[in-house]
């Protein structure tokens, strides 16, 4: 793997084809992140303040469904795909075959998600965990996705570079896996549900698959590319990377039933899920070795990359341990499980993609993010929000688990112990959201900057006191 000493400041000629679709995907991904987090924070609030917003549309279950669907299908998926498209074009020294189709795909996708919010708030949920979006909208999301992802797969097939980089393996896997996962989930769980619990099993296959075979490989692709590029050092022990990739591919899909341990499903299914859940330690540890950054570099992109790697290692180990039956018996059904999911989705995936975004924004727009302080605030609030939010659910959920495990402790006392931690979690999410708002503010400043002459930013204008005059031009 060759490592350029200084990352280029702008796009290379062949990369121009991907500028618009990538910017559009990253932009709408960011908006969905804000929307999803806002719903998440509201849902978190309702857990300890059930009296507020006593309306049908604000039922906790509905808010949670909006939050999880938007954060997954909007924020993480679109941002990840945006970073992925650029990586494929860049690494493959190729063009997008049809950037127009990628834009149309994203438009369809966004319309479906936009319609999904009122649909879910009005009670249109399918009632299947992770797949609450009304099926017709789910199909539109899938269509939009296929239009975008088709460009990605074509860019891999048209790769003009001898051989594939790790980022390309992970992205190819992710693109094909998500198409299959979502199609299967829509068909088996939503369109042709059989009676009883089968839908829960196939939804489990989708939900676990989406975490380990969609979000994880996208985030890892971003890290495998940007960490060496930004630190100027190749990944450590590169010979482990293929093993990390193939072990993730092998075990990721088999963890479907880790959320159903002890549940009313055939016993062999649970055993398979537990074994796969533990074996996932292999890709987690190998990729962590590859990506361990050490003390080098303190650019915003590197900081987010470090956060992502740390969260991945920690979250991966904890989720492997908690899939063991003995741990599961205590922690299943508690907020601890939510903490692990948030750590992986916000601490790992989202941070890994932000590492990519910080590295990409100057190249895509030809300008730097204008405000240094906002970058620092984004970083600090992100870390603080995660510490508070994930920490609160981890501690509170731990206590809740041991309380629930002891039949002599009644549920109301368990909840009384949990309540302060529920409150703290809301605070954590709000702080995290604030962090993402500071990033958004920076992007807005950058966009406003386009109205100003090159070389000057709104901030310099404001500082030098010439802003009103220039802006009026």
């Amino acid at each position, binding site marked *: 793997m060759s490592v350029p000493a200084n990352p280029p400041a702008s796009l290379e000629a062949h990369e121009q084809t991907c500028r618009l679709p990538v910017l559009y995907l990253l932009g709408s991904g960011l908006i969905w992140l804000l929307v999803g987090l806002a719903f998440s924070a509201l849902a978190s609030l309702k857990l300890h303040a059930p009296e507020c917003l006593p309306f049908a549309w604000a039922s906790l279950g509905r808010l*949670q469904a909006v939050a999880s669907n938007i954060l997954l299908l909007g924020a993480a998926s679109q941002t990840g795909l945006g970073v992925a498209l650029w990586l494929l074009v860049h690494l493959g020294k190729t063009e997008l075959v049809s950037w127009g189709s990628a834009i149309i795909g994203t438009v369809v996708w966004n319309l479906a998600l936009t319609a999904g919010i009122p649909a879910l708030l009005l009670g249109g949920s399918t009632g299947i965990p992770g797949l609450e979006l009304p099926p017709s909208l789910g199909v539109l999301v899938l269509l939009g996705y296929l239009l975008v992802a088709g460009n990605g797969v074509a860019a891999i097939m048209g790769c003009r570079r001898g051989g594939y980089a790790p980022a390309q393996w992970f992205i190819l896997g992710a693109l094909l896996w998500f198409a299959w996962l979502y199609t299967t989930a829509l068909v088996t769980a939503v369109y042709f549900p059989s009676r009883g619990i089968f839908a829960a099993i*196939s939804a489990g296959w989708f939900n676990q698959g989406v975490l380990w075979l969609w979000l994880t490989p996208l985030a890892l692709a971003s890290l495998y590319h940007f960490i060496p590029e930004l630190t100027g050092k190749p990944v450590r022990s590169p010979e482990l990377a293929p093993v990390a990739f193939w072990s993730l591919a092998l075990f990721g*899909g088999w963890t479907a039933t880790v959320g159903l341990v002890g549940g009313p499903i055939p016993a062999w299914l649970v055993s398979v899920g537990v074994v796969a859940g533990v074996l996932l330690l292999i890709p987690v540890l190998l990729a962590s070795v590859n990506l361990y950054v050490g003390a080098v570099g303190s650019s915003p992109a590197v900081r987010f990359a470090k956060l992502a790697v740390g969260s991945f290692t920690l979250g991966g180990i904890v989720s492997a341990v908690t899939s063991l039956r003995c741990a599961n018996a205590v922690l299943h*059904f508690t907020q601890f499980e939510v903490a692990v999911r948030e750590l992986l989705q916000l601490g790992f995936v989202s941070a890994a993609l932000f590492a990519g975004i910080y590295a990409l924004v100057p190249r895509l727009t030809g300008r730097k993010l204008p405000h240094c302080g906002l970058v620092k605030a984004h970083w600090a609030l992100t870390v603080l929000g995660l510490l508070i939010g994930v920490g609160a659910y981890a501690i509170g959920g731990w206590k809740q688990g041991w309380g629930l495990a002891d039949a002599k402790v009644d549920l109301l006392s368990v909840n009384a112990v949990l309540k302060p931690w529920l409150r703290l979690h809301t605070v954590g999410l709000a702080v995290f959201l604030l962090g993402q708002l500071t990033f958004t503010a920076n992007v807005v400043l950058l966009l406003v900057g386009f109205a100003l002459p090159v070389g000057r930013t709104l901030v310099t204008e404001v500082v030098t006191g010439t802003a009103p005059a220039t802006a009026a031009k």
Partner: protein
Amino acid sequence: MNYGPLLFFGVLATLAASWLGLVAVPRHQLAPLDADLSTNSANSVVTYPPARSGQAVQGHAIYVAHGCVACHTQQVRAAKDGSDLARGWGRRRTVARDYLRDSPAQLGASRLGPDLANYGERLGTNAFNLVRLYNPRMAVTNSICEGVPFLFEQRPVGLTGPSPEALILPPDGGVEIIPSAAARQLAAYLTSLSSGGELPEAPLPAKEEGNR
């Protein structure tokens, strides 16, 4: 890793394997599952799980639409997997057959509230108390359970006195609370929740095992 076709093939083959194992095979295994028919002491055929009343079926849809699953599970685990039996949330663990009449089954993943798989049995012969749906805090102080007050109508008490269907609450300045049809359906569904029938694959555990 530099040979494209191999990469494509490997990527598809790995997922295909788990798809076969965790989607296709379970579907095949669970599809033939049907209600259990047995004869009771009076020599008539009993079906388990029993069908739900039309009201209860509509109530299931309301339960789904409001996402009560956010805090309530409907699954009882065996004694080795948790304290469910000891808490009296069921007489035996639940098995696949218990869910035949639910589409989709509301297994749930959070226990901020108690498991409801056998809630109907806990109620026994007592009629379901709609007050808990109107405002859980009136039933259990400090409950974080979510009510559905929007499924109730607030109206002034008529000249002939409180109407028979009004909730029985401390008098409140001539206002009475009337449950809508939807609230009654939800109540009927909650009353119908029971997964305790004896099945060949889920015998009731011996007394000392379940502590109840």
